[in-house]
């Protein structure tokens, strides 16, 4: 039996915007197992990104519990959260967000370097993953010298290289054309299957929803539907 990589219990999040209180999450209960390829969908303001931020240890819930890789996040210090992000979670952003002054290779290497992996091993791991995402030849290019699709593939390589337990992808295909988006999703699905890495997407994109094996719909900060497709 697979174990849970994510578990949330009655997660609520309220933001204060001036005098107005925005209840972004109104009690989310979720369990996501290791190796899942799950998409969270819903209209703008439904709480997708907020939920992803809680799971990604980027923010604390107002109430409720979030457990990632068996660790209770809401009780963690900032350093512990940074440590958990570094070792267990990979991030893929809508705008790629690569470090502009580093080459593709160095962008991927950064995570391993932060983890303290030794140089020779780092090089080996980076070249392997860049080959896997089909960018070995562009390893010495900086982000500005690559297309959007190529940059997002580097971002995927950066997220995957340290073999984290979980990858959180916030609208990863939003800035890509459908063909590039489809290739990217295929690649991620392959990595998901081969390395048993859990992928959790927040998306509006129908293609992402089609590729995912589980689809969670949010509406007004609550889970509206939870469909297992396999």
């Amino acid at each position, binding site marked *: 039996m697979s174990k849970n990589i994510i578990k949330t219990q009655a997660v609520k999040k309220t933001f204060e915007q001036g005098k107005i209180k925005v209840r972004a999450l109104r009690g989310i209960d979720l369990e996501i197992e290791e190796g899942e390829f799950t998409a969270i969908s819903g209209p703008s303001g439904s709480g997708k990104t907020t939920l992803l931020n809680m799971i*990604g240890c980027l923010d604390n819930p107002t109430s409720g519990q979030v457990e990632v890789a068996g660790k209770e996040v809401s009780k963690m210090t900032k350093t512990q959260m*940074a*440590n958990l*992000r570094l070792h267990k979670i990979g991030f893929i*952003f809508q705008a790629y967000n690569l*470090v502009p002054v*580093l080459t593709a290779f*160095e962008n991927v290497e950064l995570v391993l370097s932060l983890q303290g992996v030794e140089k020779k091993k780092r090089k080996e791991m980076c070249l392997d993953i860049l080959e896997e995402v089909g960018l070995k030849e562009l390893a010495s290019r900086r982000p500005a010298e690559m297309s959007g699709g190529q940059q997002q593939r580097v971002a995927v390589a950066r997220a995957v290289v340290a073999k984290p337990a979980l990858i959180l992808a916030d609208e990863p295909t939003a800035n890509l054309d459908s063909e590039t988006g489809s290739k990217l999703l295929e690649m991620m699905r392959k990595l998901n299957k081969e390395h048993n890495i859990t992928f959790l997407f927040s998306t509006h994109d129908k293609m992402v929803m089609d590729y995912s094996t589980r689809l969670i719909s949010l509406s007004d900060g609550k889970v509206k539907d939870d469909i297992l497709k396999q």
Partner: protein
Amino acid sequence: MLLLKMAFRNLWRRKFRTILTMIAIGFSYGLLLFFVQFTTGSHEGMINTGIRMQAGHIIVQGKGYSEEREITENIKDPEPVLQQIKDVVPDSDISERIFLTGSLSSSSGNTILDNLVGVNPAIEKKVSEIPGKIIKGDYLSGKKGEIVIGATAAKLLKVDLGMKVQLSISDVNGNIIRAALRVRGIFRTGGLSVDRGYALISLKQAQEMTKLGSAVTQLAIFSDLQSSERLTSKLKTKLNTAELEVLHWRDAMPMLAQMLWVDKISMYVFLFIILGIVSAGILNTVLMSVMERTREFGVLKSIGMSPWRIFMLIIYEALFTAIIAIFTGMILGLSLSYYLSIHGLDPAVFVEGEQGMEAAGIPMTNLMYSKVTLFSVVWTAISVIVLSVLSALPPSIRAFRIKPVKAVRDL
């Protein structure tokens, strides 16, 4: 290593801004270095002139002489004192002097002498400024009946070489003593009061006229500037008795010491202003660069970079900016300083016409040289580096505190 690489490359993301900042810091540092070295060099020059004109690196005199400058407060038997000094400072030159005041008159006029000095010409030729400033005739030969006077005094008295002047001084008992002396040499230092009121006679002549016997009013010791303080305290333990006192040049020429101190303070004020400019430059550049990269820091934190690493990234960026700027500025500062350490700067460029330049009674007409030392290069560079790091602290703390979730939301 990757962090250092990132920091260095980040500098060139806004090339124009970084280069402008570097130019500002480099130029300020170059000026600062030059100013420090020139001030140090010119101060040393002034001290040396003062020492060679009026005192020594260390002086020994009769206790109480400083207060009234009475010749009764003298060193009665200089010989054993000289021997004791030689024991402590064996490589020094020691000049025996009698400082007097008096007046000089000729058929055409008279002038007051603030400093009539009885000297041993053989030693003075080695240690004094005056022999090198003779414009007519010669320095004292050591014979009696000779006097060396300044160019202004000669003009006032309308006398020339070989002509006689009458010197009037008080002897040790307070009686007025007169002597007719022949002008052997005329000097010009450029200092107005020195060229008018400073004159030299032989020690023997002074001792005879004042009836001091073998006594002198001052033993001037010439060693070197650096060790003078240490040697002064050594001599003090040996020679400070009921009759004698040992003075460092700073205490012997308090006016000069005070003037140099004031000048040094103004140097530090200037230095403070320059460092302020450097600080503002670094703070502005680093702060702008941090504010522009809020999102990037959020992303870096998201992928697991610790706040401390982000903090260090900013500090490294400031450090690199400062170090590159310092090297550029060093070329500028050292070139200027090195040129003036060889060729010197004529202080006449600061005064108009033929007006003499004088400070604390010391003529300031010698060329002013800057002093290039490794120490000054190092301490000014370290000051700028430390200041750069301090100036980068507020933006670094800002970056340290960036919350990844807020930064990423700014997408």
